[in-house]
């Protein structure tokens, strides 16, 4: 890798690593609360997969000169995180979780598909393995999404409420920070936000049409752009909980 490309790869990987970590952390907070025992097992193992993916990206970032994975997760202030704001939001009901995970898994699958052509070999190797697990995650939440959409009047109502609640925040997933020029520099133009969003809308619109769910309209730019370090008060609460044990004894070796 050319040294002038290092900042480009960091700009690429940090939002992806943070997305995966934060969605996994929020997911882990459902432990013991999922609708049934089987889902509790399945969902926690999915979240563990995602933490593993984040760890892989953080390890690559460390190779590029960033902090250690531990410091990335436990040692950063709110403004230093680059995930999309929708992923940090406080919990609603299970329907909201299902909608969020379905929308995210579709987005992540499209992002990984394009990432698999990356010219940096260690990244390409990791993405190949990660995609095998992510296929299960997408399958799982597609099934849940369909079940709620076609289940009872209540499940369908809750799903529609959840979609309406999430929709204004989803645009934040497709942003890359101050500029997307770095994507051209490393040959990954296919990851441009507008490209990803077009594919995502095609896929999700088709699913929603088949489930007879109304399309809520074009995605808007979010009020807070997590890719620029802008985060909601929910992220403050999340960090307080996530780093609580670590902060109790910062010098301890885990």
């Amino acid at each position: 890798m050319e040294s002038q490309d290092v900042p480009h790869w960091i700009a690429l990987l940090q939002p992806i690593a943070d997305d995966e970590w934060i969605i996994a952390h929020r997911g882990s907070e459902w432990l013991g609360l999922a609708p049934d025992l089987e889902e509790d097992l399945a969902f926690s193992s999915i979240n563990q997969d995602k933490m593993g993916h984040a760890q892989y990206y953080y390890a690559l970032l460390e190779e590029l000169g960033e902090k250690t994975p531990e410091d990335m997760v436990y040692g950063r202030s709110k403004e230093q995180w680059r995930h999309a704001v929708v992923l940090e939001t406080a919990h609603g009901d299970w329907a909201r979780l299902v909608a969020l995970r379905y929308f995210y898994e579709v987005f992540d699958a499209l992002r990984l598909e394009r990432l698999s052509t990356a010219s940096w070999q260690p990244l390409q190797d990791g993405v190949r393995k990660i995609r095998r697990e992510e296929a299960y995650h997408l399958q799982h939440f597609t099934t849940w999404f369909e079940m709620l959409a076609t289940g009872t009047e209540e499940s369908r109502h809750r799903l529609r409420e959840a979609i309406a609640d999430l929709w204004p925040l989803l645009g934040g997933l497709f942003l890359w920070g101050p500029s997307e020029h770095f994507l051209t520099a490393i040959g990954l133009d296919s990851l441009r936000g507008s490209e990803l969003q077009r594919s995502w809308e095609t896929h999700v619109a088709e699913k929603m049409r088949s489930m007879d769910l109304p399309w809520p309209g074009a995605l808007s730019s979010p009020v807070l752009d997590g890719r620029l370090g802008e985060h909601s008060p929910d992220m403050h609460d999340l960090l307080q909980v996530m780093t609580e044990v670590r902060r109790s004894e910062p010098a301890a070796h885990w």
Partner: protein
Amino acid sequence: MALNAAEYRVYEVFVQRDASQFHVNVGSLRAVNSEMALQMARETFFRREEPCEVWVVPQDCIVASPRDSAYLPVHTMDKQYRLPAGYDNAPRWKRFKAKAMTIEEVAEEMATHKQGGA
């Protein structure tokens, strides 16, 4: 979300570990439909292995025998004579399978063994 236990079915989970083996029951789980049962089976039982095939079978589709002698065999007579016994080639066979011996070496060792009268 209000859950109605009656909407769930119990599925028995069977795994075939490779194409040469029978499907073996590994446990059961509850799921709302067979698609979900297959996904849950993967997450519950097969996180650390790569099975050849997985079956999920609704438990209420299984016909179980009553627990009485009309259906379950009881062996009152001595049927020892039916059982193959008295062979002690297992260690040799094991070594042969581990490629520690050729078939000729096994034959030779057996011949020597007999001559020695052990």
